[in-house]
């Protein structure tokens, strides 16, 4: 089929129907190669973004400013401005760190694991999900840095020869954390950028202004769609996907060791690495779902992020919710099975202690609410999707609060028990991190192709081609050889 053939489908086509044979289309509307380019490039080429973009930007920037002020205040006065105390020495910063690192995982998962699983629908949302990864890691990185109190000494983590002739402790999970998160940031940015080069070239070739031409020109590296380059790019992305898949398991597992190598009950659990990874993927998908729905409405991307994409995201959320629910329940079971009163106590404390509403709240938000996606009507209702996405993220933040605060505030000796109450600085810094995330995200929506155009094109039906064995064409090709060309056919 040639590119000029236009396949016009209704934009709002319901392509979620399930059939045991064949697949429904993944791109609606003008499903030609050019149509895809138009729909996606339109977002960054339109003269003005939608009004909602300006409103969102204003709110995000003010929150970002608030975060800046709070961090400066904390740096000048000291970490005493937070609610951290003894025995709860790890407060909001660590909760927020684990929370944001978790959100980062969906992008890597969608781009890497779904690529390895040959899930074609991934192409509509992967760019977008990878962006959430990069921005969420940026948010996460801030918290451990300010939590140490003297961030200008962060280079002490690096193994460099110094006057004291000592070295960092390679047995410390905090060092592993810095390595893992640093690697994650680098690899996410590389992965995101490498997959974006051909699309930046598209914007370069369509750009009208000089500044845009130069900017997109530099970042697209002089891409010219060469088949040899495509083969290399695909190989590089595939290798990055394999590495990133391992990294998805690695990062949250390493974060979990901050807790799990200790001897504090409900921290020292062998399930923590897969638990943190599962929870991270869960919260990440919830964020992608909650952002994809408004974004496709706002920027007119309904043709490439279709109902089926939303439906699939909801299904993944359901699977992840079931996994997280399994982990919650098995934790209670093994704590009971252990027979140890120290293992059992923190779990009873979660459900019936002073923070009981959190213990039950995470069960409800993460384990029960997403189960609504068993029903098709729920998956197909976009605003319900947003609501569930937000509730899940509230639940996941509460889960980190539960793990960190509730396990610490009542330890082995009742005389040292103490409640944790956050201060306004804690709360404003948390709110401010959302400002950072959304500022970056809105900038991304405006200036970078939000959907991987070339990947969407490659899954269109007319892109499916078949290579005939070279033996079959050898005879024909002989006619096209120079000798045959002399035989009196009109010249160019």
């Amino acid at each position: 089929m040639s590119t000029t053939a236009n396949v016009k489908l209704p934009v709002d086509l319901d392509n979620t129907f399930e059939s045991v044979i064949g697949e429904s289309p993944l791109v609606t509307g003008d499903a030609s190669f050019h149509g895809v380019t138009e729909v996606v490039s339109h977002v960054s080429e339109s003269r003005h973004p939608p009004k909602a973009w300006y409103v969102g930007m204003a709110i995000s920037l003010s929150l970002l400013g608030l975060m800046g002020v709070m961090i400066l205040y904390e740096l000048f006065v000291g970490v005493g401005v937070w609610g951290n105390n003894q025995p709860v020495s790890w407060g909001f910063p660590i909760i927020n760190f684990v929370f944001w690192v978790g959100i980062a995982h969906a992008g890597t998962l969608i781009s890497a694991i779904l690529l390895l699983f040959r899930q074609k629908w991934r192409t509509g949302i992967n760019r977008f999900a990878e962006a959430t990864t990069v921005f969420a890691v940026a948010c996460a990185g801030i918290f451990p840095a300010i939590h140490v109190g003297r961030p200008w000494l962060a280079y002490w983590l690096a193994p460099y020869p110094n006057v004291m002739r000592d070295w960092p402790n390679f047995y410390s999970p905090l060092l592993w954390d810095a390595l893992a998160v640093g690697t994650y940031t680098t690899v996410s940015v590389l992965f995101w950028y490498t997959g974006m080069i051909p699309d930046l070239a598209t914007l370069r070739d369509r750009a009208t202004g000089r500044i845009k031409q130069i900017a997109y020109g530099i970042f697209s590296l002089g891409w010219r769609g060469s088949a040899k380059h495509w083969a290399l790019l695909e190989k590089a992305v595939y290798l990055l996907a394999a590495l990133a898949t391992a990294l998805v398991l690695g990062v949250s597992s390493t974060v979990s060791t901050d807790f799990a190598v200790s001897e504090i009950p409900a921290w020292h659990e062998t399930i923590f690495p897969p638990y943190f990874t599962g929870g991270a993927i869960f919260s990440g998908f919830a964020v992608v779902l909650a952002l994809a729905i408004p974004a496709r409405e706002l920027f007119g991307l309904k043709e490439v992020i279709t109902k089926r994409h939303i439906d699939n995201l909801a299904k993944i959320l359901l699977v992840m919710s079931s996994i997280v629910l399994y982990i919650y329940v098995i934790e209670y079971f093994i704590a009971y099975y252990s027979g140890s009163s120290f293992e059992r106590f923190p779990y009873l404390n979660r459900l019936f202690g002073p923070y009981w509403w959190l213990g039950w709240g995470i069960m409800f938000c993460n384990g029960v609410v997403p189960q609504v996606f068993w029903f098709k009507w729920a998956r197909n209702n976009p605003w319900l999707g947003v609501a569930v996405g937000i509730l899940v993220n509230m639940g996941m933040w509460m889960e980190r609060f539960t793990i960190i605060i509730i396990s610490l505030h009542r330890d082995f000796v009742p005389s040292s028990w103490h409640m944790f109450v956050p201060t306004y600085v804690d709360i404003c810094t948390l709110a401010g991190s959302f400002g950072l995330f959304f500022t970056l995200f809105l900038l991304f929506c405006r200036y970078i192709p939000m959907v991987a155009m070339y990947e969407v094109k490659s899954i269109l039906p007319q892109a499916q081609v078949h290579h005939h064995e070279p033996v079959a064409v050898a005879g024909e090709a002989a006619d096209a050889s120079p000798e045959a060309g002399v035989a009196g056919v009109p010249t160019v």
Partner: protein
Amino acid sequence: MSRDAATIHPGVVAEPQLYGLLAEFSGPQELLDAAAKVRAAGYSDWDCHSPFPVHGLDKAMGVKPTILPWLVLGGGVSGIVGALALAAFCNGFDYPLIFSGKPYWGMPPHVFIAFPAMILLGAVTSVFGFMALAGLPRFYHPLFSSKRFQKVTDDGFFISISAQDPRFSVRWTGEMLRGIGATAIEEIKD
């Protein structure tokens, strides 16, 4: 001035040299079929250009498998070895310390050092290896002078054959390209 004269008196020629021919095809299948035929015709210095990776095109063109995976393997292994050596040197040899009753150099926790180092070096090798092998960034290319070629990042499918190819000739190569279904043919000047 004829092309032959240009080769005899290279310094004299003021007009731009011929880079090669650019032929447009109507779709991915046409491009794939044409690529197989160009290859069968014995050309060696040529390339296909498409807005997305066309599956089977590298096979049809006879592109050799890349050495990139081996480079990445090398990067990953050096990450593991480097990280373990660093940890062993720092905590086990240069400034030995006992942490929570553990041996100076215990393998289990050092996996947490070796693993990210492996991924990091592997990923960096993968990206920069791709750029090096592809010869990118390369901001100037003769093909960019063609207005038509801008479609390559949208919905255009092209084959370019370089004038450096031993089998190249404007007439015969153009003839062949037309014969295998090119919808438009352009001479590209360098």
